[in-house]
């Protein structure tokens, strides 16, 4: 086991504070240090994931106070899985964006990489923390990094997108604070496990009101339907790799937070159905919106939102299989959508408007990127033998086991829509003639490595999904087992007498 959970947060924070100083010593350090930190986080969380798989959950207390009094970090199979995924994606995004466009300059690069690192650290924090207020703080860390990254380019639209994101984010934090206030006023505690063990004492009306405010607050981060207006804009205007990071990291953290609320914290019976319904609406609206898009990244953004809807549908099924399927979907989406964003932004590298029609005929000029984009498209629409198929299959199986035939049909119909818009793009890449004034940009070596790693993972999972199924099974069992979670977190604390 390398490191401990707290290092996943502390090391990037330390690095973030140090980077401005180190940048004065050697300018290249502002690019290299975040990479090293992200690599450390990746290795550390992966090794801890292995440890957790074998030895059970790690509960790390902070400041010497056991739960529920101090803040604690929970590194359970579920959170370990998500943390590993996020740090890995963070590293890939770092690798890709090394000297990407504006990052060649010193000042922008410094900020870019600090924010990227903090984006990952914040998302990991959201996942591994065991305290709702601490989670709120991490949501804000992620949020501010995300606003800043969205506004990274100096064009006029990036500020607009960022402002919308910020407006929604501010509403989100308000809602979260209200929810926290309700919870704290009733239960007098902020620790998740403690809340979970006491939530049944709370009057139902307050409980549901708190849950609703939580849902709104986190729903904005998790891009559920009426709350996701910011998402397409932010994805479109943020730099390509940041779009990948949003899709692969930030949203996943939001989904995790939502699911943790619904599954562990609250014992409200109808919440699953709400998740299911919201997920379905999100899925349908987003995918239908995607089909008419003219900008590549915007299309990918809507697709990403739709996929998150599907994840919520899978969680909303509410069974162990449903959770497993949802986690599988999250994994696949976290691998595939970044690949699409990375290769897609390479395809529209030199175009101003980033229109879909500007990828026409690029298959000849940038064959490798084009192939990876096509691979990603094939995988995301769920064609076997690529990764996306297995998750789609498990979602459908889970739904079928609950007899939700209408939902299966809806998911599949939406998948057809998804096929239409993805294949339209792939067709354009390969079978159309290139616009003459567009100069294709060969990807840099680091970008090629980043993309091909993702492509290779898609193929590996596609051909042998068993490489991840154990981890996913552990994670889903972990999420479903609330009593165990409470016991894990509070066991040390209960023995303390106060």
């Amino acid at each position, binding site marked *: 086991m390398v490191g401990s959970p707290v290092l996943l947060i502390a090391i990037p924070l330390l690095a973030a504070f140090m980077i401005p100083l180190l940048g004065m010593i050697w300018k290249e350090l502002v690019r290299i240090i975040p990479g090293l930190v992200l690599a450390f986080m990746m290795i550390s969380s992966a090794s801890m994931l292995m440890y957790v798989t074998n030895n059970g959950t790690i509960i790390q207390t902070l400041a010497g106070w056991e739960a529920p009094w101090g803040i604690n970090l929970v590194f359970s199979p579920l959170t370990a899985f998500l943390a590993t995924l996020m740090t890995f994606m963070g590293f890939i995004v770092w690798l890709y964006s090394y000297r990407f466009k504006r990052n060649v300059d010193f000042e922008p690069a410094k900020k870019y990489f600090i924010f990227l690192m903090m984006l990952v650290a914040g998302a990991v924090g959201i996942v591994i923390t065991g305290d709702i207020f601490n989670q709120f703080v991490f949501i804000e860390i992620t949020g501010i990094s995300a606003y800043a990254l969205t506004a990274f380019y100096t064009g006029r639209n990036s500020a607009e997108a960022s402002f919308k994101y910020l407006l929604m984010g501010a509403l989100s934090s308000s809602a979260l604070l209200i929810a926290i206030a309700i919870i704290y006023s009733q239960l007098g505690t902020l620790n998740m496990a403690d809340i979970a063990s006491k939530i049944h004492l709370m009057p139902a009306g307050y409980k549901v009101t708190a849950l609703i405010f939580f849902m709104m607050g986190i729903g904005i981060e998790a891009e559920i339907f009426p709350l996701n207006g910011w998402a397409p804009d932010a994805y479109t205007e943020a730099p390509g790799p940041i779009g990948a990071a949003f899709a692969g990291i930030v949203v996943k953290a939001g989904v995790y937070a939502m699911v943790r609320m619904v599954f562990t914290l609250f014992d409200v019976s109808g919440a699953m159905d709400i998740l299911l319904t919201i997920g379905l609406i999100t899925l349908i609206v987003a995918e239908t919106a995607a089909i008419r898009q003219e900008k590549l990244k915007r299309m990918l953004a809507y697709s990403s939102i739709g996929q998150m809807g599907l994840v919520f549908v899978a969680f909303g099924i509410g069974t162990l299989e449903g959770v497993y399927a949802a986690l599988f979907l999250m994994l696949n989406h976290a691998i595939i959508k970044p690949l699409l964003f990375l290769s897609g932004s390479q395809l529209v590298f030199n175009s101003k408007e980033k229109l879909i029609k500007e990828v026409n005929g690029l298959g000849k000029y940038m064959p490798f990127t084009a192939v990876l984009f096509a691979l990603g498209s094939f995988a995301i629409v769920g064609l076997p033998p690529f990764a996306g198929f297995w998750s789609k299959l498990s979602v459908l*199986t889970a739904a079928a086991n609950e007899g939700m035939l209408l939902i299966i049909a809806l998911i599949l119909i939406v998948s057809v*829509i998804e096929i239409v818009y993805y*294949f339209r793009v792939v067709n354009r890449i390969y079978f159309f003639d290139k616009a003459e004034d567009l100069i294709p940009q060969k990807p840099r070596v680091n970008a090629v490595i980043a993309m091909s790693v993702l492509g290779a993972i898609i193929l590996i999972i596609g051909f042998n999904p068993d490489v991840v199924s154990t981890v996913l099974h552990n994670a889903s069992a972990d999420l479903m087992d609330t009593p165990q979670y409470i016991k894990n977190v509070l066991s040390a604390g209960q023995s303390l007498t106060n």
Partner: protein
Amino acid sequence: MIYLIFVIFLGGAALTWLSGKIHPILRDVVFLASLIVPSVLFYMNVEVGQTVSFSLIGYKLSWGINYLGYLFSYIVVGLGVLAGFYAIPAMKGKKNLGFFYSNFVLSIMSMLGILFSRDLISFFIFWEIMTWSSYLMVVFQGKDVQKVGIKYFVFSAIGAYAMLMAIVIIYSLNQSMMISDLVSSFASFDPTMQWLIPILLLVGFGVKSAMMPLHVWASGSYSHAPMAYTSIFSGALSKMGIYGMVIVMVSLVPIIPEGFWLRETIAWLGAITAVGGTLWAVAQDDAKKLLAYSSVAQLGYIIVGVAVGTPLAMLAALFMAVMHGLFKGALFMVTGAVERQTGTSNFTEVTGLIRKMPWTFLAALMSIIALAGIPPLGGFVGKWMLYESLIGSSHYILVIVIFFSSTAAFLYCYKFLFGFFLGQEEKEWAHVKEAPAMMVVPMLLLAFGTFVLGAFPGLILDPINAGMQEMGFASTQGKYWEMSMLFNEWGDQIMLQPILYAIIAVFAFFAIFLTIKGFKKTRYVTTKDISSSGEVPLEHENLTFSVNFFQPFLRTVEPLMKRQIDKYYNEFGRGMEALFDFTRRVYTGNGQTYALYAVIFIVILLMFKNTLFGL
């Protein structure tokens, strides 16, 4: 061994692609090797009934071949290898050949995989690989990709997803993905599921086998893929739909109470497909389109046979499936050869190639005769059994409809031969040469296959019989067929050998009679030298008759053809896109509106929290 076959296929596909970067010849060799080696291994080393099992994320998967699969493997592998040989000269000089060849290998692999699948998951996986590899072939030439390609894939996806839905329902009811478990426990499902599952599966298979009303992709896709591929696309790939349909119709539908109506519906859909396909084929001016619609029509017959499901009908359907693979494969190859030599496949442009491409013509002639179902070639056997089975099973109106369709088929059969090979020999095509031997030999082999099966249908009826016995039919040998004899339900018989000999004898006699007194002495005159009401047409006068070929007929059947399903689909698609365009306007672009949505969201949840959260 089974794994090895698939590994070789997969590795072959990848190697083909890579070796194309080194040298084209190496690529061709690797391509052929990766088709032939696994095929040989398959026939040498794989026995029927031999299975391998493994488990993947909790699903038990099992691969092995059964008799029915073995039968279809003849179509797949045979046609695949021949088309592979054909492809090399046919595709010469095109771009992206590595891509083409590896997709080709993948297609063959996936089809063989479908036949090997003993469980629904691997069936579906191979099915989808087949779909996207064929999709990549459809768009390979880059024409109309957004329209034709997307249409093909959307329909395939609808089919595949219907199938997937059925699969997950089955899994939820059965907790097993094995096809055999499905069959054995199907009777215990509740009636809704008993209806739903076969219908969903049939939608899936119906798309691939171009059944009405799911056929609209077929004409475009068949005609847009390179002809070297279309021969297996139409000849073998569409048979996978038939394969699945056979399993559903034989193993599941009889168990459903009132399943009779499902059968009838499918049979009627098949018949309508046949009629519609034929009429549209008659109306086409492009050989590829004509053959595409003809494929639709032929698949209609097969569907009728499968749906009717009596032993004789099943024999007929499966025999016709094999025959269709042979002659349609050959005809697409012919079209490909003509297209390669002349650069177009339009009847209104190409004429009079018979003297330039005699061998191609021979292959086309035999295949057309087989297609039209005229004795003594194999097409007749299938048609005969189909009619007899329909009459024998009291489908009287159906038999008339089928008969109408197959009579109307003569029209396009003639159009195909006349359009390409007969008629005026224009100067424009004077330079045309016969296609390379490597292209001609595969088509002649296929055409010869129809001839052999016409005289000795028992050769292929034997494996069909084995496959049917496996599915629970009683043996039909001796009851419905012998090596070269056929019987119907009432014991009436057809002796194929005397027929063949009589035909050969009469033909030989008159051929000699016509030839003996100095065919050599007769003088060949150009096609301008005709008795045209006493006038002598000049060289530059274009006398070719090819526009509006069957106009009177088409005018008669116009009311039938006015209702084009394609139009409704297009309108539906446009309507949906307009709707989507409308719905996405919820994203107004105004940040404040989004904030308002958030408040509306929370208000709705708060107001209805009692109902929503079950308080």
